[in-house]
């Protein structure tokens, strides 16, 4: 097919919940190494789109292809994660009773089935990689801290760190700066840019200042399909976008 170059290819995806069309013929193409920001008003279908990509929700119709060949509509969450798609939730979701170190350890790329996990020892290389990730996500020195005791911003970063540990080819990040201070928001933008150097990222965000800071191609979702696509300046100038979203 002609789209083998795309990392993620969504074509005409439709999802209906009890008659409500959460996604309505959504099409989206993400290239390898790309960072894309997805914006749109509440109910535009942003989270449903993430759910479809990660296998949480099944599409009624349409294609979802990863790396041109893998049909994501046939796989479950764990299998899709194993393919190399990582997801950060809207609310920071980490393992509250585990230490920062253990959170990252569990996320680290490696065997996921029952028996190998039962007998897996802690390897030096794993320890080393966890240290590196803790540096990247600004959690140095907090290895033994229980994740439940971290601040909101630190939890967001820990979750991003867990995604990094997974070493995915594509990271889906849902509202990473919700509830963050301005300084934390700026640091997060920098962090995502750093991550984007080695992998593709899709960011769903409400915060316009943050999207501007990311300075990447933007897709505007409205009523379950893409309304406009392009730079933030370009889509901001689109009268339809102004009407449904920015002009409210």
């Amino acid at each position, binding site marked *: 097919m002609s789209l083998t170059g795309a990392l993620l290819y969504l074509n005409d995806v439709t999802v209906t919940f009890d008659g409500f069309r959460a996604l309505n013929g959504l099409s989206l193409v993400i290239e390898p190494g790309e960072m894309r920001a997805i914006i749109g008003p509440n109910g535009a279908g942003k989270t449903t789109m993430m759910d479809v990509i990660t296998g*949480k929700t099944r599409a009624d119709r349409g294609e979802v292809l990863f790396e041109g060949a893998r049909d994501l509509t046939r796989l479950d969450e764990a299998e899709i994660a194993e393919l190399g798609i990582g997801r950060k939730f809207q609310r920071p979701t980490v393992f509250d009773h585990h230490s920062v170190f253990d959170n990252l350890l569990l996320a680290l790329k490696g065997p996921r089935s029952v028996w190998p996990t039962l007998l897996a020892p802690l390897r030096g290389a794993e320890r080393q990689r966890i240290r590196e990730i803790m540096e990247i996500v600004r959690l140095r020195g907090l290895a033994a801290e229980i994740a439940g005791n971290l601040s909101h911003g630190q939890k967001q970063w820990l979750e991003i760190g867990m995604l990094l540990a997974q070493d995915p080819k594509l990271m889906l990040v849902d509202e990473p700066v919700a509830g963050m201070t301005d300084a934390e928001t700026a640091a997060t933008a920098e962090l995502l840019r750093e991550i984007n150097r080695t992998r593709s990222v899709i960011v769903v965000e409400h915060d316009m200042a943050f999207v501007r800071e990311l300075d990447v191609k933007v897709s505007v979702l409205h009523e379950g399909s893409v309304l406009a696509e392009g730079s933030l300046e370009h889509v901001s100038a689109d009268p339809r976008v102004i009407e449904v979203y920015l002009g409210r």
Partner: protein
Amino acid sequence: MIARFFLAGFDRRVALALIAVLAIGTVVPLLNLMLPASHVLHVPDYMVALIGKYLTFALLALSVDLVWGYCGILSLGHGAFFALGGYAMGMHLMREIGPRGVYGHPVLPDFMVFLNWKELPWYWHGFDQFWFAALMVVLAPGLLAFALGWFAFRSRVTGVYLSIITQAMTFALMLAFFRNDMGFGGNNGLTDFKDLLGFNLQAATTRAGLLAASSLALALGLLLASAIVGSRLGKVLVALRDAEGRARFLGYPVERYKLFVFTISAAMAGVAGALYVPQVGIINPGEFSPANSIEAVIWVALGGRGTLVGPLIGAGLVNYLKTYLTAAMPDAWLFALGGLFILVTLALPRGVLGLFDRDARRPRTAAVDPIPKAAE
């Protein structure tokens, strides 16, 4: 590799509990058998039977803690696995009676002769062999748990719904085992046991031996549970207990982990039941009663959920209280049990062991959710 596996989860508390359990298993039988009845330190026979029974309850509590405390599966049907293990052992003990039954039939147990049955039902074959019965003690509850878990976990049944299913399972089994047609002795269950492996079940030495065996089984169970909990798999269990969705999106096949621990736990409960039956001398469908399973959950809650050692203490405390109260004030027992549960829920959310726990590694938000909500 095996040694490392078993030592991974080993901490001071588990070590102390192991020593205590093994000490009970050696000291109590010795004080019972070696000292004359007049001696101050002599342990009377009824105490041996009682302590032996408590040890099997402690093993049941441990199995509940493994699924509830570490994996968030609130099973209200673990009594069923305990009873199935008990029935498997009871069937062997029935076959051991042989021609010494009231009706003197060489093969058929008394209740079958009474029901005018002519031959042994197919599922009673093999139980004349101890090794076969021992295998069934683990396999019957294990397979049931595997089958139930296979369907429930795959369909992503969690929380209260899962609890209700397990409760319904034990209730259905109780009704089934009450029926004479089932071939498990109906209402009366299995009783009048004579001996086990050639040892007379009424003899003080056999009873002391059963107590020692129970303590050994509990110690091994504790060792296995602490190894599981201390492994990376144990961390995955806690992870999916606290944030199942996150674990899924990290690529963990959550269902298989739940199935693994649920099956192991059920087999453990089966072993507890098998050791319980020869010590109390009877197994009947009442053991499937939903109340029994709920009581086991209370032991765990009281002792401290997710601590492994706490549930052993909880089982001991509650059952001692039960023994004492049902004799001294029979009407007060259920009120005491209900009161205890309320007290623990309100005042000791982390159980008795939580009182002594200076473990700073726990989050301040000690979110003690009896039934964790399904993650997003």
